[in-house]
């Protein structure tokens, strides 16, 4: 039953995942950790860490959640449930979007979504850096990474490596 529940949840989440994985992370964490208790906050952060460090779209974090909750079937279903409904939408909307290139509504939608996505990504970052009680060491790593990313143009993988080293020294 967990598998059905997980699949249906991801299909719904897919439809509101404006901004991709970063903006749905707070909701995903809320559901699988707080509401369902399938995963602990620390496990969630580690799933996220592995998902970020591995090559590929970070939507695969959903697959890791599925894997943790229901094994390989969970991982596959999570991927297709998380991408399916939004893919169907993309299929239909791509042509419409082109046709309404100059419509004021298209511009209004673009302007409306931008600040929401920013607020949600910020939430995702905050929640991931605070898996339990606030810990200054995790916040320090997060703040240093954010600053480094804003001030330089190196591949983000180097920051993840730096975070790993800081983690080994500080934690």
């Amino acid at each position, binding site marked *: 039953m967990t598998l059905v529940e997980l699949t249906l949840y991801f299909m719904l989440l897919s439809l509101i995942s404006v901004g991709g994985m970063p903006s749905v992370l707070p909701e995903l964490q809320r559901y699988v950790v707080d509401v369902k208790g399938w995963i602990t906050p620390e496990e969630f952060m580690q799933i996220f860490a592995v998902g970020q460090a591995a090559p590929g779209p970070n939507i695969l974090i959903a697959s890791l959640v599925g894997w943790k909750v229901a094994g390989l079937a969970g991982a596959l279903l999570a991927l297709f449930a998380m991408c399916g409904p939004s893919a169907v939408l993309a299929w239909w909307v791509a042509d419409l979007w082109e046709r309404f290139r100059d419509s004021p509504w298209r511009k209004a939608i673009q302007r409306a979504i931008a600040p*929401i996505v920013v607020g949600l990504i910020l939430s995702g970052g905050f929640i991931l850096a605070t898996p339990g009680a606030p810990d200054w060491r995790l916040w320090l790593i997060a703040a240093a990474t954010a600053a480094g990313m804003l001030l330089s143009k190196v591949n983000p993988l180097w920051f993840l490596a730096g975070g790993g080293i800081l983690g080994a020294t*500080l934690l």
Partner: protein
Amino acid sequence: MSTDVAPPTSLRELFLGFLSIGARSFGGVMPWAHRVMVEERRWITEADFAETIGLCQFLPGPNIGNASIVFGKRWFGLSGALVAFLGLFGLPFIWVLALFALYADFAATNETLRAVVTGVGAAGAGLFIGTAVKLGRVIARKPAALALIAACFLAAGIGRISLFIVLPVSLGVALVCARRGWL
């Protein structure tokens, strides 16, 4: 530049192109998508790439996943969309599971490894915060945009209110603001 681009001529070529995007996408998929589609294989122009990615960012779903659907459909219809999507996700799916399985095996007994991965997670969180600041800088000159960013953060990040409530409400408010020229 725009004259010498040509779309893939076969499903096989489409699949291999997206496979090579997924396979190499350490540290983020988008730069590799650009490299493969615009620079190496010359399927599309720079402007076309930017336009399509722009659209995909405003749709729900992973934006590179959506892009695979949109381009696949444009060139080969339904089979193109499926082939591009599977090409993109095939290898990363296997790798992320393998990496996690490997990690789970070692982490149970290894304190240091757990600390390293937690540090990586915190750095990943920092990348999100950096991304939010980068995107936010562009729009935050308008007070309404700043207020919306803050409201979404307070609701979803601090208040832990469900996104199924936060998104429809904030989108409604934001659309009104946008129509009035406040955003």
